[in-house]
């Protein structure tokens, strides 16, 4: 499958025109991460967005005294990295491939330029990221409520 086909197959590009997807392709590269590879670390420059195709990635937070705590897994079809939407942002979590993972990596600066040049593309991508954020927020709320403590 070509990079363009891979890009088209990812939910991030759902609803985009052929021309818009072609434009994103110019910012894209395919990357393979072997099992155990660190994809990014907390504090690093959030300069890319990762469209996961296959494999599994864990988001982790280092907690002093407890080590690395796993927060959530992401798999094929998911978007890894939300901070990139904001210029100059830094990653707030670690991301590590727990299984061999294939993804398309989009250069954040190039995506920003495309979003600025094409308002419809900008809106579509921003909406997608917001939806991902919203769904992650829902999951985090449930996680935080610790509902299984004392259930019967």
């Amino acid at each position, binding site marked *: 499958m070509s990079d363009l086909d891979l890009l088209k197959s990812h939910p991030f590009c759902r609803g985009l025109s052929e021309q818009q997807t072609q434009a994103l392709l110019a910012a894209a590269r395919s990357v393979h991460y072997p099992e155990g590879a660190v994809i990014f670390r907390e504090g690093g420059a959030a300069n890319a967005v990762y469209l996961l195709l296959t494999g599994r990635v864990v988001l982790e937070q280092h907690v002093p005294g407890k080590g690395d705590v*796993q927060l*959530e*897994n992401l798999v094929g079809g998911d978007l890894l990295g939300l901070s990139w939407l904001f210029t100059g942002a830094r990653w707030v979590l670690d991301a590590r491939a727990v299984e061999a993972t294939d993804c398309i990596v989009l250069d954040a600066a190039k995506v920003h330029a495309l979003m600025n040049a094409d308002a419809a593309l900008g809106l579509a991508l921003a909406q997608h990221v917001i939806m991902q954020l919203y769904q992650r927020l829902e*999951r985090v709320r*449930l*996680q935080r409520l*610790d*509902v*299984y403590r004392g*259930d019967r």
Partner: protein
Amino acid sequence: MSELASSMIPAPLQVVSARRESADVVTLTLDAAAQPHAFEPGQFNMLYAFGVGEAAISMSGEPANPELIVHTIRSVGAVSAALSKLGPGDVLGVRGPFGAPWPMNRAKGNDLVLLAGGLGLAPLRPAVYHALAHRADYRRVFLLAGARSPSDLLFREELARWQQSQQITTLVTVDHANQDWKGLVGVAPALLARIELEPLRTVAFVCGPELMMRFSVRELLRRGIAEERIYLSMERNMKCALGFCGHCQYRESFICKDGPVLSYQRIQPLFWLKEA
């Protein structure tokens, strides 16, 4: 003795084995060989810890083996704490089975999604046994199970076996884990995103803390599963288990008699109310 009288008098049964599932959860197997105890997946018994009191506990064992009654109990109150301390040879009182079961027939010919959170896996385990024993009756069978942490997972060996089985797709996740855990991390309802659902050919059974079920229902509806295809096991404080005393009243329904398994369509108007 009338049926009513017999359903009010606990039968003394002996504990055959007590298996510790986690720090505060134990699975008791009771000898019912003298009085085989047929039940349907999702039903419950009233278990009587002598001198302490009764509690409603779902069956978690094999419906096809009525000579052994299995209950999985978390120690959260006086009665469940007393039951949790029982060991082989001890005797407890049993009334039941009571309540409306999982609608296994309704799910025939469909994909069956069993979504469990925490101790909610216990009332769903008989449904898994049933689906596997009648595998041809169902299309795909999914067991999606969530727990607080790896050490809180119930039936670990069985889950591992089902994860290897071609008969059932089993996904297990935990809310929190350190790096030793190699499985999925995240909340149970999020597992629905990990399977390809065919909404018009899917029936979902959900069991877990009510908040987890609210999130699950929202996610199922979002994925196109119709209200009438979603079933929940509700929990309320039960006393008589016969629909007389009203302790478990859920407006016009009694959880002990009309439930514990109820269709979401039936309880939808109440489900989102704060006090129902």
